[in-house]
């Protein structure tokens, strides 16, 4: 098996989430499955390859989804894709969220911006077997109401049993929920760090302050899980790019327990 070979996927549908973010529904030509939190390398033929985390449930059969923010060379081209175009994928790659460690606990998902993509996959995966967990909560922050991804889906997640609090950095006149950076959601939400785990994903600065807040609230470093975004090239532990201290984020991560990496210099950059 050549780990550099891609599996072709047909673009079935494209959903415009925000002005910069689109969700792509992809149908792999061959059997493909992943565990929530793992990532794929998505190839735009002749252009390049970028890592993304599937945003759909690991239990969903057939097509899967990725949610992509336009951020540079490759993602710009990805945003030009149309239905029926073909892309390539390699994967699944890296570590996943350790669901068995979450069982019987209150699971708190803390997300910001497009960091919601892996968290949506986790949320949907958790909700599928929600009786295994004591409680499932999503705390989500975006810059402003127009930047919220999956905007029509929050209601249905609530109906299925998730508790959800949202905030935006800058509200507009129609916004009725919280205003402020994501950590302000903890003002009104009482956590259960003794029997809880927290999963954080978002822009580096949000990950940093989110993690510090969780520690302050009493979460043990072993109970906080981070999805680390590093420069990645091979995705299989060979090219060296994704180093987080001695670890390769593509192979030893991207999902890390905070306790494993807390002493490494520069993890938030």
């Amino acid at each position, binding site marked *: *098996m*050549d*780990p*550099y070979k891609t599996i072709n996927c047909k673009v079935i549908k494209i959903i415009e989430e925000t002005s910069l973010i689109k969700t792509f529904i992809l149908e792999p030509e061959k059997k493909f499955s992943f565990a929530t939190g793992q990532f794929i390398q998505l*190839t*735009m*033929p*002749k*252009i*390049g*390859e*970028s890592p993304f985390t599937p945003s759909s449930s690991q239990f969903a059969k057939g097509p899967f989804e990725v949610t992509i923010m336009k*951020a*540079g060379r490759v*993602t710009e081209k990805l945003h030009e894709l149309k239905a029926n175009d073909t892309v390539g994928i390699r994967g699944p790659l890296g570590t996943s969220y350790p669901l068995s460690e979450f069982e019987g606990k209150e699971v708190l998902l803390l997300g910001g911006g497009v960091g919601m993509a892996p968290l949506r996959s986790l949320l949907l995966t958790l909700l599928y077997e929600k009786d295994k967990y004591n409680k499932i909560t999503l705390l989500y922050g975006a810059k402003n109401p127009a930047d919220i991804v999956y905007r029509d889906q929050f209601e249905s997640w609530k109906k299925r049993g998730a508790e959800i609090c949202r905030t935006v950095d800058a509200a507009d006149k129609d916004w009725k929920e919280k205003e402020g950076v994501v950590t302000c959601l903890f003002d009104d939400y009482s956590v259960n760090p003794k029997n809880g785990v927290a999963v954080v994903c978002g*822009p*580096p600065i949000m990950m940093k302050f989110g993690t510090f807040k969780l520690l302050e609230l009493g979460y043990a470093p072993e109970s906080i899980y981070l999805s680390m*975004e*590093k*420069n990645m*090239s*091979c995705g*299989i*532990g*060979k*090219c*060296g*790019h994704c*180093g987080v*201290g*001695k*670890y*390769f984020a593509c192979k030893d991560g991207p999902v890390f327990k905070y306790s494993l990496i807390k002493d490494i210099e*520069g993890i938030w*950059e």
Partner: protein
Amino acid sequence: MEQKFISNEKVKALTKKLIPDYEIFYPRRQEESWDWARMEADSEFTFEGHRTVLPLKYFFYSPQENLVEKKKDKPRIIFGARGCDTKGLSLLKKIYLEDPEDPHFRKDILVFSADCTTYHPDCFCTVLGDQPWATENFDLNFSIVENGYLVSVGSDAGAKFLKDHGGFFESARSEQEKSMSSHRTSFEEELKKFNGNKVLDLKDLESKIEKHSDVFKEYGKTCVSCSSCTNVCSSCFCFFLSEGDENKIRYMDSCQLKSYARVAGGANPREDLIERFKHRFTCKFVYRPQMQGFGGCTGCGRCTAGCQGKIDFQEVLIKVAEAK
């Protein structure tokens, strides 16, 4: 395992016989240095000398290559690889061949190593506690003795080769084995002496690198981020995967380049030149031993020899390792 002897004449005859079936490379002398050359029927070669200018690793993968199934070249034999290069293969094999295996890293190469008989002024294998002869990752090793070579077997493939070409080899005599040992000892002593009889204790290097980061500030300031040091290294393995028209292309890459760790949006954990310079040491002497079980430096001194900023990497290492 039993050692063999092969005479100078028989080595010539053997290589002639091998040329049609193998692609053979050997270290060709260019005044005071050695470069890799393809063996032809009339090539004049010797196992004397020290490491080549370019590392052994590029026989196993190319600095730039299309990652497509290649039509099978002839299998390769590399003559005259040195101890520092064969040692460097340990880390490379760990990275490229394990979990998942990289099918583009060649496995059909026979390494016929040779004991060093001279050294380059930048050689410092002994400072790391290593020997100037191959101790691993070789198939056969050639040690110069009177009128020929003492041949030691390093792998099953090497043993098979000896068996298949038994007519060229004869049993070694005990005085030849003694002569090899004494050559080795005296050359090792000579190189140790040249390097001030230092053998570094690399145990606490992790904390020392942090504590004495001013050493990196002092030495790193002439670094121009050219990436020579990583390109010529016996054990640097980093690459960048890119998209060709039909396939993926792998280019060698370097942690010394500014864009290496940059992510979309512009954040860069190693934007700073000195951080990158220091990172190279931490990677080699701390991270890779901890995670892969093999160090990333074998003391070949190529990084020093190739440095555009005239940085002596051995000196930097010694400064940090000997700091209190």
